[in-house]
């Protein structure tokens, strides 16, 4: 490692650290312990910061999706009377809204995440991947708190607890993977292409309607259904319905109604997004400080 062995004491008497190449501004450099410590500290800080200075404090993380749930519930049970045809529609809607909130909030906040941390990015060396990951982790903390409220509501509404509720972490994990991948992409691209913020705002809305959040996939007309089923988020929400709300719901596989290839393509798209996320982030991370 050292340039000249005579300069460094061979027996290590002097505790001179050896010369090592500097890591450079990479997504992950610096050791895993430091990575996860930093990730945790940043996520907790972020969690504190989000609601700091607001009157309701942490309650906002619950109140916001609840308000949205209330509005959607009113529209789809009172105005359109669509909810009547779905079993335990209010319980399903609440669960879906909470799950989608994780995806929407984390990705939206990730877009500008690198730029708002400009001070840190331009002055300190740390693994850049921590930035979007800390935001996803913050939203996960939010979701964990919110899910407690969701399950209280579900039970109160009259859905019977089932052992499949224990599989919820699987659903959340899958959702987390998609969210992380998309967050990595938008956070890495935004410093270079400021359009990303506008594009993602629109795309996020499209995805809200293009994912079975407001409706179970079974009620959608067939052509529309095929498009929606290519969405990698769709199987996650379908499976959540089956495991949590209604064991007779079709689930991710059943919802394809025999066209299993739809599910396969959706998984392929999911894999592509993950690969693209890693590729883009790894490519952009070293240059991010220069683009600010």
């Amino acid at each position, binding site marked *: 490692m050292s340039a000249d062995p005579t*300069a460094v004491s061979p027996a290590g008497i002097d505790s001179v650290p050896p010369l090592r190449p500097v890591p450079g501004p990479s997504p992950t450099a610096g050791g895993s312990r430091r990575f996860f410590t930093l990730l945790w500290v940043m996520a907790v800080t972020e969690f504190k910061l989000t609601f700091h200075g607001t009157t309701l404090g942490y309650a906002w993380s619950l109140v916001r999706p609840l308000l949205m749930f209330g509005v959607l519930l009113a529209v789809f049970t009172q105005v359109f009377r669509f909810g009547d045809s779905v079993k335990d529609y209010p319980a399903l809607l609440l669960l879906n809204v909470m799950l989608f909130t994780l995806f929407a909030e984390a990705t939206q906040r990730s877009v500008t995440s690198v730029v708002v941390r400009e001070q840190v990015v331009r002055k300190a060396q740390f693994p850049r991947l921590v930035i979007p990951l800390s935001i996803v982790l913050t939203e996960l903390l939010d979701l964990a708190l919110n899910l407690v409220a969701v399950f209280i509501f579900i039970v109160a509404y009259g859905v019977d607890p089932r052992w499949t509720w224990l599989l919820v972490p699987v659903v959340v994990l899958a959702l987390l993977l998609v969210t992380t991948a998309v967050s990595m992409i938008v956070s890495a691209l935004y410093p270079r292409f400021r359009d990303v913020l506008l594009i993602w705002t629109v795309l996020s809305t499209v995805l809200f309607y293009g994912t079975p959040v407001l409706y179970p996939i079974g009620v959608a007309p067939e052509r529309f259904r095929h498009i929606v089923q290519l969405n990698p988020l769709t199987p996650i929400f379908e499976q959540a319905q089956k495991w949590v709300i209604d064991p007779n719901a079709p689930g991710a596989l059943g919802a394809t109604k025999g066209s299993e290839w739809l599910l396969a393509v959706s998984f392929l798209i999911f894999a592509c997004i993950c690969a693209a996320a890693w590729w883009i982030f790894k490519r952009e991370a070293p240059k991010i400080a220069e683009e600010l």
Partner: protein
Amino acid sequence: MSAPGTGAPVAIEVRGVKKSFTIPRERQTTLKERALHPKTWLRGEVARLEALRGVSFDVARGEFFGVIGRNGGGKSTLLKLLASIYQPDGGSIRVAGRLAPFIELGVGFNPELNAKDNVLLNGVMMGLTRSEARSRFERVVDYAELWDYTDLKLKNYSFGMQVRLGFSMMLQVDADVLLVDEVLAVGDLAFQEKCVASLKEVRDQGTTIVLVTHKMDDVESHCDRAMLIEEGVVDIIGEPEPVAERFIEVILPTKHAGMTGEGPAGISAAWIADHGGRTTQIVPQGEPFSFSASVYARDRVDSLELDVGVLSHPEGVRISGLRVGPGEMPRLSAGEQATVRVDFERGSLEPGEYRLSYELKDGEPDGRLLDRCPEPARLRVTGEDRGGGAVMLPHRVHVDRTEAGVPR
């Protein structure tokens, strides 16, 4: 390999490092702009600025190493490459042990957080564990003398307070290499002295320090060795004095031009020369020197006035001035040029730094400004005879003995 002049092992090894940037003006930032300029999209950026073009040097362990150069010369880029903020385009950088940077007068604090959260976050970034970072909070605040402000968000700190906290943070993370950018340029004098004392103290314990500065005084008074970076290459590296001399002599432009160039006449060049006629910026105390300005005329000018001021540095106080009036200035017809030289017969300036400013005016009573220097010319007077001021008035000392004795 050990660094030249020392027996200590190498702490920083830089080999052939290159770095270039796209010039922001030319950069395409939105997709639409990219789409409208598909060539740039395919070919990459058009204009590139080469900040570093192959820089190599070693810094020994426990060395106080100065990096000096003009703004835009590449020294800050070098620091950011060492700190892993930028990625080099070529070459290699190796560092022994942990490195703590202090860049652009900060270590990367979050303005929305208070001092305690910032110290925790930053400590973890610099490689401490959470408990280590927490336990160092007291030392950081102690050093920064900010006990009364620990609950305040950093955005409510004054700039000086933020600098203090940042510098203190950098000192407390037990790094093997400290990268310090311009800290001695801000803050009150007492804090600057404290910074220097601390840096020298950790240096004596084996910490390596790289100080980036554009003040040669810093290099001369604190550094063990120094390096001059100019236009992206190492111009000279070695003892602080020769590096500082080189900085003055070569890097600072010896010829200045005027800036406005709109009126009927202007200054195309201005310079200081020693009594041998060589352009210089260093004049020994008491030696004659001259100031020259080349004046050109666009249109016929009958009446000009050249105003030359000697300013103290860094205070910028005009300690002396002279006017070359319309009687002495040449009359120029369109396209003509003339050089006006002012000889300072016997310099009465004391040793130190000075600046010469100059203005070309219309010689009419209203004295319209035609041209002036963009930046005052630098003048350094060397010597030992100090009277404690800027100008030593020409004087002689006489002593008369008298019989009367001691007054009562």
